[in-house]
């Protein structure tokens, strides 16, 4: 695979859910090693978009191509194997509530690596350390706060050091300091491991810090895309309203 092909490419994706056309001819590319940030209003289809990238939702029309392979036409067994390249953290955490925090993070390591128990323990501790969680590894997810759960989900996503990371609102509900820690982590993984990341966020500060490119999702497609600088200076009234968080404007009409 040559280096110019994008790592992730959505091509003319349509998706109707619950009688509503959520994605309407959505297309975008994410380059190898890039950090791509998607912003947009609540309920606009950001989570649906990110689930298309890992094949949890199949498009009604169009294609999703990851690392040169069309995952929309892949056999389920191949898709299952292909997903080892991904790590994903979910908006609501989606931790396995029958397992402890430790077992949650160890789960992908146990299944997809030949790590010994001590190597697994080491890696889990390392991941928990990175998200600044201590002394929680034997707790159940139900004993954690929302923000802690989100960080455990984040730790589980990165534990295998995958080539592609998808984060659905990784910093929502976290205090500003921990938000910044998570943002730094994403930047660091992009630099040191050359990970391709797609992050959904409402936090413009985080967005501009981690992004190589920012895209704004509106009415089922990307209406504006650019580097943090060009995005910030966009003349698009939708983008301006969103960045400034104003109540009046095209978004609320």
């Amino acid at each position, binding site marked *: 695979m040559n280096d110019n092909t994008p790592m992730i490419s959505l091509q003319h994706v349509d998706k109707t859910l619950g009688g509503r056309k959520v994605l309407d001819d959505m297309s975008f590319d994410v380059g190898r090693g890039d950090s791509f940030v998607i912003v947009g209003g609540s309920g606009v289809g950001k989570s649906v978009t990110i*689930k298309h990238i*890992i094949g*949890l939702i199949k498009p009604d029309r169009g294609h999703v191509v990851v690392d040169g392979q069309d995952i929309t036409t892949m056999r*389920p067994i191949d898709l*299952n*194997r*292909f*997903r*080892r390249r*991904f*790590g*994903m953290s*979910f908006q*609501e955490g*989606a*931790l*396995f*509530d*029958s397992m402890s925090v430790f077992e949650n993070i160890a*789960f*992908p390591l146990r*299944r*997809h690596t030949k790590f010994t128990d001590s190597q697994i323990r080491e890696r889990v501790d390392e991941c928990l350390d990175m998200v600044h969680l201590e002394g929680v590894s034997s707790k159940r997810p139900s004993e954690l706060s929302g923000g802690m759960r989100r960080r455990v989900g984040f730790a*589980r996503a990165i534990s295998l050091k995958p080539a592609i990371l998808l984060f659905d609102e990784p910093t929502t509900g976290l205090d500003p300091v921990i938000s910044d820690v998570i943002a730094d982590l994403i930047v660091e993984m992009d630099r040191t491991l050359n990970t391709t990341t797609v992050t959904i966020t409402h936090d413009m500060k985080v967005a501009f810090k981690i992004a190589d490119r920012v895209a704004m999702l509106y009415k089922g497609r990307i209406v504006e895309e650019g580097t943090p600088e060009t995005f910030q200076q966009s003349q698009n009234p939708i983008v301006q309203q969103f960045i400034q968080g104003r109540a009046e404007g095209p978004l609320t009409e």
Partner: protein
Amino acid sequence: MNILERIGRVFIRLFEETGLWFRMLVRTFVWTFRPPFEGGEWLRQMVRVGVDSIPVVFLTTMFTGMVMALQTYNGFHRVHAENFVGSVVALAMLRELSPVLVALMVTGRVGSSMAAEIGTMRVTEQLDALEALATDPVHYLFVPRVIAGIVMLPLLTILGDALGVGGGYLVGVKLMGANPVIYEQNTYQFLQMNDVWSGLIKSAFFGLILTLTGCVRGYYTSGGAEGVGRATTAAVVSASLIILFTDFFLTKLLF
């Protein structure tokens, strides 16, 4: 017109769901032989299906055996055939009552809880998380549960056989005053190995049906907490119906 349409719709749904059920059966079968094998998870499910069901099985089959003896004794007494009570109880328990009753009780206990468990995982996106971690839910959740059902139900049925026959003996001998030696002799007299086998084979099928139905119902849950409730009820109702339905055809097939 309206009513015909409704009936038609019910049948279409029935066909669809049957198709879905068999598709999941095939998927479960295929994944059973693919690594990694989660030994610990298999064991945990066997305990859950088998060991934890012992008290329920104990009470159900024992009392059924006792009632059987009581009823047949009363009836047979009229034609002076009391001696055959032991045979009737043993035949009925081994061939029919123990496998079916055990299966229905375990459906209520375990099939429902599997539907609720997997249904909750669906509505909290834990199934999506499993898939995102390159783990097929059928592989990780269905396979250990279905295997546990197939292995443990025959074992529970053996226990049920023994308790049912034992309960019948207690009532026949201690309560109705039958001759213990004759009663025991009559219990074994007409039994063939085939009676034991047919019951055990049936119960293995029932174990497959009740676990798979619970899993499938949970897997296709939608609509939050209410959806989980619906999936749970549906799992028990449809598994019970399929069990009774299959029972007839298996009995016909196995004599």
